[in-house]
Structures are given as structure tokens and as C-alpha cells.
């Protein structure tokens, strides 16, 4: 789960990080008042759950009240990479002498949290990794040993942090690691961490991603949840609790029971489709094929105007094919299928299931090859 910068700043503050005071505004008037209270110059930053806000024009400086009003009115309501800006952060524009990157994330391969630091802050960390890797420091945290200040100092001094910043950054990272553990964060970044001419070390930006699997034990974080979906069909699917990803340029809806099976089915449609049939989405209904879930799945997939046919691929393991078939019929009771729906049923009791589906609105088939043939037949006849 991603959260807005201003919520991340609030969490940083709670953990004692040096974060300049700022305000959130939802109207240009609010932004102007906030800016006047803070004192100029200020920076006005779009609060949306996407990266690259600055490059996209969502971060602007303002020198005075009228300017703040003007900049805020330009940013509020802006479409930033598919998300509409509903609020802005108004923060003091800090004088920057030098900038750094610090963050903690998960190293999947080593199965450890890793602290990453760069003495070339403000720049895309991947670019630094490519061009000047000596400016990047990494420290993998032993979960039993924990994180120790000396380990951070070793890393920070070792990758070019100036001494005063190294000492402060070590302390900040200790606090951030505590937050990571307390709140089940999957990523936390301060980019940039800056040194001002007056010698202050400040966190100028804040980014936190939470491990979705940990959210159940942090109910207070629910308040920060906002939809990251820019696609209305994905938004609808997620609101219905469906595991759904829309694909660009597809025309065959894909539904299956099991993530690996669905991915493989998408790939098979793409291969057999030879450019005419392409997967339009991923949708895993999981085990059980309950009628309600199947109905929602079909509705969502068919709501995509690009979808001209649907392939449902179900392998019944412990789930029985006849149960799946009954669930499917129940799911479409009273509705009309707007596009041809091919259901490939395999595994336990598949013959019984296919028998039940004969004569229904579905096109039941036994093999995936048959399903692909049916699908390409439909799609070719449409061309």
C-alpha cells in the first residue's frame, strides 16, 4: 500500500525525524494562507500516488502570496499520470547545500531488509547505480542482530557522506528501521535528505510503502488508504475484491483459478492468437469458484469495451468440475452474456461439468487447444 507524501511526513515526525513543518491544502486559498504562515519562498507539491511529480509539473516554487495562489490553482485539479490532484503540500523551500538519498527496503534474494544510501541525492538512484556506483552504500540487516549505529556509520562514511551528515543520517536511519519494524513497511525513502547552509539536516521528501500482508495488524493505517488505480475497470475490480490486472491493447478476457494458470493462459492466447487475439486482462478467481465471485469476475471482464470474447480456464483439483459448472450457471442466471464465453474445464469431474454446461450460453470445451481454437475462430470472424 502506497501513501501520500504528507501522511509519510506525519509518520516521520512521529518517529522523531527532522521534517520541516508543512501544511496540506485542498484549495488555492488554503494554499495561500498556509504559505503566508510558513513564510516565503515555499514549495507547492502535488499529493498523488505516483512518482516523478516534479518532472510532470506537479512541484512548483512560490515567492509570494499571489504566486502561491496561482501555482496551487495550476497544480490542483491537474491530471498527473492518470491521477487527479486533489491536495497539495505547502512546505518551506529549503536552501540546499548538499543532497543525499537514504532508504530501507526488502532485498528479496537475500531475504533481509537492506539499507541503501547515496551521497548523490535528488537524482534517480538507478542512474547513480549505473554511473557512479561508488556513491552508493548498502547494508543488509540481520533480523536477529538488528541494526546498529556503527554499521550505518561504516556504510555512510564509506560511500562519501560528509561527516556531519553521516552522523545525523545514521541516527535517522536507526529511527526509520524502528518504523519499518513497527509498521511493516516494505519501503521507506528520504530523497533528498539535505544539508542546509545553516548546518541543518532535513528530510525534504518522504515515501513509504506498506507490506499489504501486514496491514491487518495496523488498523490505524487504513485511514491512509487511497486508490492508486488510474484505470476505472481496475478500480471497480479491486472494489469487488477481485485480483485483476488490465492489459493494454487486448481483446480476450481471461479468467482462471490460480495465478500461475491465469498467466500461462494469457501467454497461450497471445501465442495462438497470432496478433488477432490478445489477452485483455489477468483475473484469478482462486479456489472454489463460488457463484458470486464468478459473476463479479464475468461482469468486470465484460465491462471492458475492448473485450470481444472471454476464456475461462478452470482446472479442478479438489474443486469438482460439476460444482464449477453449476456455479457458472448460477452466476449468469438472469443475465445475458454480451460476448462469447469459452469455458475450458479440466481435472476432477470435468466430464460431468461439461455435460451440465452443454446447451447453456457458455461454449464448454475440454482441452485448452480447443478453447484457443474457439477463441481465435470468434476473433477472426470479427475481423
Amino acid at each position: 500500500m502506497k501513501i501520500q507524501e504528507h501522511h509519510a511526513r506525519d509518520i516521520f515526525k512521529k518517529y522523531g525525524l527532522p521534517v520541516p513543518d508543512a501544511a496540506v491544502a485542498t484549495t488555492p486559498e488554503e494554499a495561500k494562507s498556509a504559505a503566508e504562515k510558513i513564510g516565503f519562498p515555499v514549495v507547492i507539491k502535488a499529493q498523488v500516488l505516483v512518482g516523478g511529480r516534479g518532472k510532470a509539473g506537479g512541484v512548483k516554487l512560490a515567492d509570494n502570496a499571489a504566486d502561491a495562489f496561482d501555482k496551487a490553482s495550476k497544480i490542483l485539479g491537474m491530471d498527473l499520470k492518470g491521477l487527479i490532484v486533489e491536495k497539495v503540500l505547502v512546505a518551506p523551500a529549503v536552501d540546499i547545500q548538499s543532497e543525499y538519498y537514504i532508504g530501507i527496503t526488502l532485498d528479496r534474494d537475500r531475504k533481509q531488509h537492506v539499507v541503501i544510501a547515496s551521497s548523490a541525492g535528488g537524482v534517480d538512484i538507478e542512474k547513480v547505480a549505473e554511473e557512479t556506483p561508488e556513491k552508493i552504500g548498502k547494508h543488509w540487516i540481520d533480523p536477529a542482530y538488528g541494526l546498529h549505529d556503527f554499521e550505518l556509520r561504516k556504510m555512510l562514511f564509506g560511500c562519501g557522506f560528509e561527516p556531519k551528515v553521516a552522523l545525523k543520517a545514521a541516527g535517522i536511519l536507526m529511527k526509520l528501521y524502528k518504523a519499518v519494524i513497527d509498521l511493516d513497511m516494505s519501503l521507506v525513502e528520504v530523497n533528498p535528505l539535505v544539508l542546509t547552509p545553516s548546518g541543518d539536516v532535513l528530510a525534504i521528501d518522504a515515501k513509504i510503502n506498506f507490506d499489504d500482508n501486514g496491514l491487518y495488524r495496523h488498523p490505524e493505517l487504513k485511514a491512509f488508504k487511497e486508490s492508486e488505480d488510474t484505470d476505472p475497470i481496475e478500480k471497480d475490480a479491486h472494489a469487488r475484491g477481485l485480483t485483476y490486472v488490465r492489459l493494454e491493447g487486448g481483446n480476450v478476457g481471461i479468467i482462471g483459478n490460480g495465478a500461475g494458470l491465469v498467466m500461462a493462459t494469457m501467454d497461450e492466447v497471445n501465442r495462438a492468437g497470432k496478433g488477432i487475439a490478445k489477452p485483455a486482462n489477468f483475473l484469478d478467481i482462486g479456489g472454489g469458484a463460488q457463484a458470486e465471485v464468478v459473476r463479479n469476475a464475468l461482469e468486470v471482464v465484460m465491462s471492458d469495451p475492448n473485450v470481444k470474447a472471454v476464456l475461462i480456464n478452470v482446472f479442478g483439483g479438489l474443486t469438482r468440475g460439476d460444482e464449477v459448472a453449476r456455479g457458472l450457471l448460477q452466476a449468469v442466471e438472469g443475465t445475458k452474456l454480451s460476448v462469447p464465453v469459452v469455458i475450458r474445464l479440466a481435472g476432477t469431474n470435468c466430464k460431468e461439468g461439461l455435460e451440465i454446461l452443454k446447451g447453456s450460453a457458455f461454449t464448454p470445451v475440454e482441452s485448452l487447444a480447443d478453447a484457443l481454437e474457439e477463441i481465435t475462430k470468434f476473433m477472426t470472424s470479427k475481423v
Partner: protein
Amino acid sequence: MAIIIDENTKVVVQGITGREGSFHTRQMVAYGTKVVAGVTPGKGGQDMDGIPIFNTVAEAVKKTGANASMIMVPAAFSCDAALESLDAGIKVIVLITEGIPIQDMIEVWHRCKAAGVTLIGSNCPGIISTGKCKIGILPHAIHMEGPVGVVSRSGTLTYEVVDYLTKAGIGQSTCIGIGGDPLIGTTFKDVLIDYENDPETKAIVLIGEIGGSDEQDAAEIIKTMKKPVVGFIGGRTAPPGKRMGHAGAIVSGKGSTADAKVAALEAVGVPISDTIVGIVDLIKNVL
């Protein structure tokens, strides 16, 4: 001989009285697995179909000699359940549950590694040593004894592949679903080494998908192996940056795409099938 489990393995089911736990325990027993105990804290002294239920794994181990555990408890209690098994001396832990916080898995993973305990999962269908023992939820009716070792990150896709193999008369020595999460206890690498040393396994089917670098690590091991490996990699049409169901199935970086994994495996001589059913022909060629 078999890998990880065999006909002598004694299993304790944590969460035996739950809906899933009880159902799958009965399936395992029907297959011939020696389920010697169940653990549901607070229900010690009861039994299910004659299987004694204990309050703690420690007591279950003491009274029955259980040496492997299947965990079917909710995600919120799974880390605790795994650590309890570890503490009680269990040597193989099959963690079926999905949705366990990553932080919990970090702890469980490192402790199991330090103790030399085999952890399978999380978010996995389990392991079946054909004809000998099943710990998990795989539909055992489709499995047949034979010379092919199967290792996969998927659930139903694995069953599909096994079904095709069995229908083609090609049996399986062991089938192990290592799980769809980003942090799993047993990786492709680990299982390949086991299969290489297993006299019952003559060839291996590897089913991978987008995300992580497990397939690339596997390629390094395959370089040193004598037994042939064939594979299938799902997710060639997956868009970058999106989680495709499995928490571990996400393209984030060049190495984590399906194409990168196919390339890494083909580079070490592993034929990769474009289709699910094509795996059967590939394995026929090498048997």
C-alpha cells in the same frame, strides 16, 4: 529414497480442527500419509478420526515422534506456528498459508536456515512424494509414480502439468510446489540439488514465473547437473510493475521478466516449452 519426505515421515497438522485443516488432513490420510497428531491450542485431548490433538507442538512431538508439520492456520498466526514447530524439533515445515507479513517470513526463514530445518512455502500447495506421502493440498488423484521430479512456483498450473504427464504415462517421483510468495523457504536451487541426488528421479520439470531471480539461480545449479531439466515460464504477457496474483509474481527490473528467465535457462541447455502441454513432449525427449 525420495526427497524431503517419504513413507516414514510422521506429520503433525497445525490447525487440524479448522475447516481447511480438517478437510486436507483427511485427504492426506486417505493418500496414506502418516498423520500422527494435530495441534490446536486449547483443544488438546480431543481427537479427529482417531488422530490425537494436542495443545502444543512440543507435546505432539514428545508423544508421537512427529518430525514434519503442515501449517494451515491464518496468516496472523503462521509465523508463531512455524517458530513453535522449529522450537519443538520439527525438521520439515510445510507452510501453506498465503498473506503472511514479509517481516514474519524474514524471521522464520532465517531461523529455519540457522537450525537446518526445511521450510516449504509460504503460500504453497505443498509436497507429494508419489505413493508414499503427501503434505499439502495437491489433488493426489492425478499423480502417478514415475521418474520425473516436478518443482513449481504455481498451484493449479502445477496440477495441470502433472495431469498431462500422468495421462501421457509419465509418472512423477516427487512434486513440490514451492510457493508464490517473494520470500520462500525452499527455492528451485534447493530442490534441483535434491533431485540430482535422488535415485528415483531421472528428469526434472521446472515451472517458473515472473518475479525475483530464482530461475536464474537455478540455471547456475543446472550447469553442474547431469540430469536433464525442461521448463515452462509463465507471465510472458505480464505488464511491468503489476502484481499478478502471487505476491512474488511482479516484474520489477530486467531480470524479473519471463523472457529473462527463459533466456537464462535456455543458455544452460534447458528446453523451455511455449505451451503448457508442450512440456510433455520436451520431457519425453529427455527420458
